[in-house]
């Protein structure tokens, strides 16, 4: 029988290893501060604040997790940050006013929505060159690439459509009408469904990718909150297909939707004007940005409870979590 102390040591070591495995860096872009807050996901503390370009909005990790792409909207560029050093290593040509983008599953191409010029710009990450631009509707905003890499979709906020770009030919081949002011698009893990939020319409559309037709429109109702204050923006879907999480903007809640029945099952109160969300790699935590209360909320996805709100910079916008 091993010595009791060594057993304790082993336990301690194991729990330490577990917390190490769980500890991730959470990156939050602060739109009005031109900074990035870095939060340790195990201590739930801000550990660093890094200066970046003007008006950082969409952020996404590279496939190897070593760098972070940052839409610096007012600098009209996408910055690439080396996460080990926290330094911007170079800029990518992004087209005018980049707001959101999506990295192809192979990590090679970045699809950028240029809000001011009604185009989607395609960048080759390695050679840092623009390889194409595709004309879309008025105010392109949301971007997503299907898990199989076949489709890049863009939502245009004033045209109220999802535009389907064939990534092989880089041509717009179809457009699906959704509700007012579509902000964000997200494919299900199996690539069969596309979820699209409509901020002013107050709905989330679920689109069948094969037919590119809308199969379900999800509405929300929260007691005491006027219907038109419920403005869905970001979307995150769990890999097991169980839940969808949708931040509802000025309703200050995150909707938890049963992703099989498409029914909202719970609304979680977070900070003010909640826009974007990211799951941790193990999907045990959901991080959301509260633009007006200048904080982020972290949600326990098993208990469906808000654990804590953590102050960051002014107007937190995008969020990325290492390892996810």
């Amino acid at each position, binding site marked *: 029988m091993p010595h009791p102390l060594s057993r304790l040591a082993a336990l301690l070591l194991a729990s330490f290893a577990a917390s190490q495995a769980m500890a991730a860096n959470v990156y939050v872009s602060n739109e009005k501060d031109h900074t990035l807050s870095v939060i340790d996901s195990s201590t739930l503390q801000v550990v660093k604040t890094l200066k970046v370009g003007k008006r950082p909005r969409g952020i996404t990790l590279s496939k190897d997790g070593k760098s972070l792409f940052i839409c610096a909207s007012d600098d009209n560029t996408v910055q690439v940050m080396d996460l080990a050093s926290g330094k911007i290593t170079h800029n990518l040509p992004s087209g005018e006013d980049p707001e959101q983008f999506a990295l192809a599953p192979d990590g090679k191409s970045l699809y950028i929505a240029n809000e001011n010029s009604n185009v989607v710009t395609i960048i080759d990450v390695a050679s840092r060159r623009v390889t194409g631009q595709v004309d879309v509707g008025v105010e392109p905003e949301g971007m997503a690439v299907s898990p199989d890499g076949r489709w890049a979709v863009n939502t245009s906020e004033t*045209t109220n459509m999802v535009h389907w770009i064939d990534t092989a030919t*880089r041509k717009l081949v179809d457009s699906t009408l959704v509700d007012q002011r579509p902000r964000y698009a997200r494919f299900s893990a199996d690539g069969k469904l596309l979820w699209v939020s409509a901020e002013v319409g107050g709905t989330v559309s679920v689109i069948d990718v094969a037919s590119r037709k809308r199969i379900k429109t999800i509405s929300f109702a929260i007691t005491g909150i006027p219907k038109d204050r419920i403005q869905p923006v970001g979307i995150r879907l769990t890999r097991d297909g169980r839940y969808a999480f949708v931040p509802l903007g000025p309703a200050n809640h995150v909707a938890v939707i049963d992703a099989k029945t498409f029914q909202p099952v719970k609304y979680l109160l977070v900070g003010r004007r909640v826009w974007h969300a990211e799951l941790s790699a193990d999907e045990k935590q959901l991080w959301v940005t509260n633009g007006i209360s200048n904080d982020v909320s972290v949600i326990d996805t098993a208990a469906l409870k808000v654990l804590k709100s953590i102050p960051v910079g002014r107007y937190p916008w995008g969020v990325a979590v290492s390892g996810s």
Partner: protein
Amino acid sequence: MPALPVRLAFCLAAGLLALPAAAQTTIRLTYLEEARVATNPLANIEPVPDDLGRAGAELAISDNNTTGKFLQQRFELARIAVPTGASGADMLAKVQKSGAGFVVLNVSAGAIDRLMAQPAAGRYLWFNAGAPDDRLRQNQCRANLLHTLPGRAMQADALAQYLATRRWNKWFLVSGPRPEDQLYAAAVRRAAKRFGGRIVGEKVWKYGHDARRTAQGEVPVFTQVGDYDVLIVADESGDFGDYLSYRTWLPRPVAGTQGLVAGGWHAAAEQWGAVQLQNRFRQQSHRPMQPVDYAAWAAVRSVGEAASRTASGETAKLSAYIRGPEFQLAGFKGRTLSYRPWNGELRQPMMVAQPRSLVSLSPQDGFLHPRTDLDTLGFDAPEVKCPGH
């Protein structure tokens, strides 16, 4: 920017792209403007732009066309300018010639009366983007006349709600001698009754029009009326209103047609994606977007939105949809906009702003309405007597 040549190449490629050749639908709109009676606003730093209103319609046409290309819809805008006081028959003949089913009006209320008196006017859907007259929204409305410009009642209600939240309830009302100033003053009196304002003093400004040299002497004397919380000025043509601030006997804020103003749009709006609209407008017209531009934009976008949703270009079908319960327009004000079925006025949040910044958005929190709080601004159904609506 290296992207430009690439973009050009892709545009060309897109042009060659063999999409299924569905027949293209053309939807025609006409923008009709009446020459303005020249006024001499004393604050001569901001002349009235020649393309006021028209620029908003033009921006919306290009927004509609960007959307329309995905649906094989094309939007065309004809522009008609008529002299002040043009006859109804003349105006209608020009509209008929343009071949449009939808007409955006930036004309006086009198011109609207003359147009609506024409029997053939019933065939069109008219959008009033230029006349704030409440009578067109209260007892002289028409089923096929919509109002994208908020009426004076909506303006005064939006301001009154904000003053109520500040508890600035004692108002000193100063109005100009022109008929439109008196109409604005009437809207202020109505708003006072609705939202708990008390008009503790009321005066008409009769000191002639050019107050530039004399305001410093006249205004302090003119404003000795006892105590009040806020001076509300009714001076739509800008004859003297700008000369009241900082010259009142008591240190009091000025609101109304100058100072703190409520309108459908403001150049300082930036939330809810408004920055994009402001940028597009500025890029096109090299000046800030004004409320009349926004009203014309909303009118043309309403037609575009109806065409996308119904996949149709038929005037009757689109008109019914625009006036129906399904219609929603995203207007960069954080809420969906729609038309009130009882008088055709666009339901919309109102911007309460000072010249260089947005102060608040009305309706204010706490002003409730069984349908939507947006209907706390302007004329509600029971207040409207409109045959045919």
